[in-house]
């Protein structure tokens, strides 16, 4: 079947805060902007219940913040197409093409803002119990563990916040932390340490889980002594960091060893006209505010790139 060919000025891949901000800036620059999102706008924001570090909002849900950004981008004329996973790309040579099930895109510039997804727990029984006691989304699946003991693995803000969220349902939340400290915000750490339902096991690493149909226990090791202990619990929620969604770009775009996209200060990749913004690129701080900043920089430089091309064509 012949697919329709679409030729926007800027094609943005990913509808998280980086992509949506890029859409706002590119649309304000009067460029024809199309944003492709795998599901619906929001990215990892969608799973964040309360955001308390986005300036201008005391507390806002990820859904509301993402919804506002998407609405703003649409009103400025950006086209946001949901439920459109990208099937393949060809970015390196000549015309840039991006393929979805329904259309073929040939944009002048591409902004990759596909973000990152939670890393799977590196334990032997991960696949066996995925969805049956191994989970990565407390806001999604936490409610199914009412009055149960659940574990949380990880050492950053996400782990701390999700542990607090899980206390809404679980009878007890056990945090399993490899090191003797957490990397999250001090205020969240304090709330976790003072919570009567949360027990923090420092210097413990998750080795595996076991059970019948679903998880019944976890095996943890003391990272200082090597002593192994079994813990009875019904589920483990993993927050051990993220991995970038860059499998489609491996062929064309330069990545680091972890698969994150390498950019310069202007967020250009190794391919002219292809920019990267947000969690998907190599950077030190991954926050909503830094994703938004990236979206801005990428869009303005994409605009510059397109205008330079037009000047050259006109000269």
């Amino acid at each position, binding site marked *: 079947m012949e697919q329709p060919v679409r030729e926007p000025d800027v094609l943005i891949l990913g509808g998280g805060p980086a992509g949506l901000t890029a859409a706002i800036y590119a649309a304000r620059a009067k460029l024809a902007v199309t944003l492709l999102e795998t*599901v619906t706008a929001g990215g990892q924001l969608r799973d964040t219940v309360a955001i308390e570090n986005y300036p201008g909002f005391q507390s806002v849900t990820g859904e509301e913040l993402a919804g506002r950004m998407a609405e703003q981008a649409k009103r400025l004329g950006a086209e946001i197409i949901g439920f459109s996973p990208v099937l393949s790309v060809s970015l390196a040579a000549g015309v840039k093409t991006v393929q979805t099930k329904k259309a073929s895109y040939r944009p002048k510039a591409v902004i990759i803002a596909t973000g990152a997804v939670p890393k799977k727990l590196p334990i032997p029984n991960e696949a066996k119990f995925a969805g049956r006691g191994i989970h990565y989304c407390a806001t999604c699946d*936490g409610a199914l563990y*009412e009055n149960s003991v659940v574990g949380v693995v990880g050492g950053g803000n996400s782990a701390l916040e999700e542990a607090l969220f899980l206390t809404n*349902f679980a009878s007890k939340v056990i945090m399993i932390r490899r090191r003797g400290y957490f990397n999250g915000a001090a205020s969240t750490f304090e709330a976790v340490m003072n919570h009567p339902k949360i027990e923090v096991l420092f210097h413990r690493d998750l080795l595996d889980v076991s059970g019948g149909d679903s998880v019944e226990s976890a095996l943890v090791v003391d990272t200082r002594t090597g002593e192994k202990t079994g813990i009875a619990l019904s589920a483990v929620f993993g927050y051990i960091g993220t991995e970038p969604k860059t499998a489609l770009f491996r062929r064309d775009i330069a990545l680091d060893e972890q698969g994150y996209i390498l950019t310069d200060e202007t967020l250009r990749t190794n391919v002219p006209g292809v920019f990267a913004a947000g969690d998907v690129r190599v950077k030190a701080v991954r926050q909503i505010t830094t994703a938004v900043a990236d979206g801005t920089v990428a869009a303005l430089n994409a605009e510059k790139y397109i205008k330079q091309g037009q000047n050259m064509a006109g000269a």
Partner: protein
Amino acid sequence: MEINIYTTPDCSMCKAAKAFLAAHNLPFTEHDVSASRQAAAEMLAKTRERKLPVIDIGGELVIGFDQDRLEELLGL
């Protein structure tokens, strides 16, 4: 074809699944498993998986928001 979807209120993929069904004008019945123990029990009787959403399309189960599988089952 009867479509039942098991959800929780904060679950983004549940919202995505509902938005997807709505975008195709497909009516569905939603069951909030966090609000109703009966709904949770009903869901767990159908599948041991606890990855939401669980979508029951005329007896065929889709675990999580799996667009390809939904399109296949719904003939989209």
